[in-house]
């Protein structure tokens, strides 16, 4: 299983985001995002905002990063104001 972490407002209860995702061969961060979008449309819209960052085991990665069973996949929403 892949552990999912939705940081900040992506973790708001209204999104009802799941905590884990079934690992499979060739699965990428983008693949998880696509699957979540079809199951949770509001969460999907938030994940498709520009500048959402994704990390695997606390390292920022490309969305095409292949995921290994047991990793932590985290989504970080954009923060740009000041």
């Amino acid at each position, binding site marked *: 299983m892949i552990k999912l*972490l939705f*940081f*900040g*407002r992506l*973790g708001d209860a209204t999104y009802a985001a799941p905590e884990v995702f079934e690992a499979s061969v060739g699965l990428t961060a983008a693949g998880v995002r696509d699957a979540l979008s079809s199951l949770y449309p509001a969460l999907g819209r938030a994940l498709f*905002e*520009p*500048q*959402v*960052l*994704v*990390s695997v085991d*606390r*390292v*920022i*990665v*490309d*969305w095409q990063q292949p995921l290994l069973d047991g990793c932590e996949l*985290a989504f*970080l*929403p*954009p*923060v*740009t*104001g*000041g």
Partner: protein
Amino acid sequence: MRLSGRQFARYSRHLLMDDIGVDGQDRLLNSHILIVGMGGLGCPAALYLAAAGIGRMTVCDADVVADSNLHRQILYRQGDVGEFKVDCAKRALQEVNADLVVQAYAQSVSAEILDGDYQLVLDCTDNLAARGLLNRHCRASRLPLVSASAIGWEGQLLAFDFVRQQSPCFNCSITQSKPEAATELAEDCSSAGVLGPVLGVMGSLQATTAIAMILGYFQQHGELQRYDGKSGRWMNVTLSTNPNCQLCCGSKVDV
């Protein structure tokens, strides 16, 4: 520089720290920091740096103080509304520390402003265009850059030591997912809102990071630090040089 008797008293709590002491305080007193943006981040960052004994500060911001600034921009008072932020900031900062030399520019950051003898730059801006400009300049000039941002309950800090050739840059983080992500977001503090103290956390973190960098202690270069005040969570993630970054790897991204 020799500390005066008054300065010995003023900075005594720094002098008591083995890893600051007289030498470290002297280094702070001889430092010149550029702060771009005197809003929610710039106010707390500048206040702590002024109090801590940074010797010179150049501040720039084109805006005047508005009522809607007062819940978070803690250098300004109700009577300041309508005045340039940098003029009010200079006055308030020098009330905190009369030894501080402040150069104030009531304008957006420009090549003229960037052309200074700074030890470090604080990015306290609220838009991607200014952040991109500071990133490019600091990277090219090999100047340390401490960039922060906030929205809602959340804050983010990125510190880059561009003295190191292999440092990732701000553009690396923005274009990590895809080059087209390097566009302004529809949401900023003026449209989505922000909790005032979150900016205090992030601005104070910028000041702390700046002091740690000037004193040569800071280790988290190229790490992205995230804070969520609502849940009380912090998260640090590592950023690496991104093959999609025009500045670091020469791909065709225009930021």
